């Protein structure tokens, strides 16, 4: 298992070659993701947002991997990679809007190479293979962008994981398959998901490399991802482009705000993993390097609080979507029957008023 920092933030491997700013930026991103997550959970508790899937504990894997990407690379996230998507240019406001049930939260800015997440588990894996394949078909060996796909430990059991990775092996696509193994698929523990000793070794079935990395060590994740990305773009002789990375980590919170983990796991286990929290680990390392001190941490925390508060304000002050917008974006051109339905909808709304629709069922 690739590791750079030990649980106390001491160096036990090769520290990636990042500038001072980059190291601090990594830390700030992680703090931002953590704070965003805490606020999002509390918004849900206060009834200001719907069901939300928290990421706390997984910042090392998300930020470490997302920062390793080059500008032209793509990510294909699952529903939990708010941190990675943010690094890649998806505004936090969008993420909030999405979990507030507003489709406009899904609109990824044109300049962000982020695919729109889909909820059906593992279904994005073949998409990522297809996207990478398209790039290779267009650019051949000159392809110089990679497509990194995130998914969970549970996702490895789905047929789409198998088919997506097998296509990648056969067509040698520039992919990094990044498994956020957070030990749980809702209430099902990793050991009951598969009898495979590691998830990384599943790559053997597809004829390419699998790597296990400490997913709560952002520097190790950064290093492993960087290597995989390079291989995807420019494999050495006899090397295949794709890599399966298993980032071993833990979800500190509930599966989603609708979930009660006390039903299925012991707090003692949670505490054990909290000892490996990626944020204090990186902070320790950065303090040791002289890149952080109490003041700088305080400044970062303040700016992170402000950024999240602004995003929440922006999301909450967004006017709720126009009801008739549900008839849009179905086809490039609205077919006649859909127009009729949209007109019928407008008529009943007009006739009965929005109260008729919004009353408690």
């Amino acid at each position: 298992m690739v590791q750079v920092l030990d649980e106390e933030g001491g160096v036990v491997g090769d520290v990636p070659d990042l500038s001072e700013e980059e190291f601090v930026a990594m830390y700030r991103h992680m703090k931002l993701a953590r704070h965003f997550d805490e606020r999002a959970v509390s918004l849900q508790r206060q009834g200001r947002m719907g069901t939300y899937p928290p990421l706390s504990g997984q910042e090392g894997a998300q930020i470490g991997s997302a920062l390793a990407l080059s500008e032209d690379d793509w990510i294909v996230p699952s529903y939990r990679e708010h941190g990675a998507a943010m690094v890649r240019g998806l505004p936090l406001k969008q993420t909030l809007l999405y979990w507030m049930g507003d489709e406009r939260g899904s609109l990824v800015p044109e300049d962000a190479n982020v695919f729109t997440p889909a909820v059906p588990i593992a279904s994005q894996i073949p998409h990522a293979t297809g996207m990478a394949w398209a790039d290779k078909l267009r650019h051949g060996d000159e392809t110089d962008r990679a497509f990194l796909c995130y998914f969970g430990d549970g996702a490895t059991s789905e047929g789409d994981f198998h088919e997506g990775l097998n296509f990648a092996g056969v067509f040698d696509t520039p992919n990094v398959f990044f498994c956020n193994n957070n030990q749980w698929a809702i209430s099902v523990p990793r050991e009951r998901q598969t009898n495979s000793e590691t998830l990384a070794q599943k790559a053997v079935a597809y004829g390419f490399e699998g790597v296990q990395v400490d997913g709560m060590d952002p520097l190790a994740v950064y290093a492993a991802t960087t290597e995989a990305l390079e291989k995807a773009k420019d494999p050495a002789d006899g090397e295949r482009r794709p890599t399966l990375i298993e980032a071993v980590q833990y979800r500190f919170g509930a599966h989603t705000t609708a979930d009660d983990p006390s039903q299925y796991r012991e707090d003692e286990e949670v505490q054990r993993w909290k000892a490996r929290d990626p944020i204090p680990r990186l902070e320790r390392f950065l303090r040791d390097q002289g890149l952080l001190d109490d003041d700088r941490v305080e400044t970062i925390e303040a700016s992170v609080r402000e950024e999240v508060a602004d995003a929440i304000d922006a999301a909450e002050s967004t006017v709720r979507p126009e009801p008739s917008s549900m008839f849009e974006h179905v086809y490039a051109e609205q077919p006649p029957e859909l127009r009729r339905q949209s007109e019928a909808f407008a008529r009943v709304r007009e006739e009965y008023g929005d109260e008729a629709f919004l009353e408690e069922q």
Partner: protein
Amino acid sequence: MSTQDQATQNLTIVQSVRDALATEMTRDDDVLVMGEDVGKNGGVFRATEGLHDEFGEDRVIDTPLAESGIVGTAVGMAAMGLKPVPEIQFSGFAYPGFDQIVSHMARLRTRSRSRYTLPMVLRAPYGGGIRAPEHHSESKEAFYAHEAGLKVVMPSTPYDTKGLLISAIRDPDPVVFMEPKLIYRAFRGEVPEDDYEVPIGEATTRREGSDVSVFTYGAMTRPSLEAAEELADEGIDAEVVDLRTVSPMDREAIVESFEKTGRACVVHEAPKTGGLAGEITATLQEEALLYQEAPVRRVTGYDVPYPLYALEDYYMPNAARVADGIKEAVEF
């Protein structure tokens, strides 16, 4: 069956699901429950709460996250005589297992000339209105009703839920049991403690009326009844028929009600095009055209992907839309 002379409990629909499962598991060692998070966790809706403790992990089985694997292994188990009750966590996640459902669960009896039969029940909560993320609100019963070999049950009350689920488990053939999660906990009803069956394939009249027939099922039964009550004040006497089973469909009951009223409104939350309202309408005018006095109105979901929750209340048929449809049928 009368509920008067027996002990009853006051249960919600989801509790009735649990009660039916516990009842049949106690009665019949071959019955088992399997699926994602059905074990220790008791199901994401608590439909299997406590069953893991009561019956152990060999009969309440947490599976890997793989719907085709869940349905496919259940097919194998059932072929060997067990009576598996696999759960699909949300009906919108059944599609990775769709081939196993339509090509195998539906067909093994035919394919094997009845040597292998499948006494299995595929449970799945369906439908919208609970502020859930995308794909959690699907109502695609039409897919299963179009596939011969399957039965498709969609209850709307706690009493029916227990009775129909017990019937489904005892049925020698595979049943898709779609549970109206919108009303999982919306109200309670008296449910006998003992086991009993509500027959699959029989509709029931929830409200008698003489002016117009409303045909519906599952979670849409409530707004349909609400609309009927509202319209009673306006002097419109609507009959509300709850199909309970959409395949096989109780065409006799549908036709009978229509022969009385001559007018109809069909209500479902599934998208309009290709939804079962079309099937019901076609049946009516094949079998009872001479009784028809107005176009059959369809009050349904729209032909759009089910929206995220900010707009779902606009998508779902509600009492106002049902009332509007009924009035159109009556005033034609």
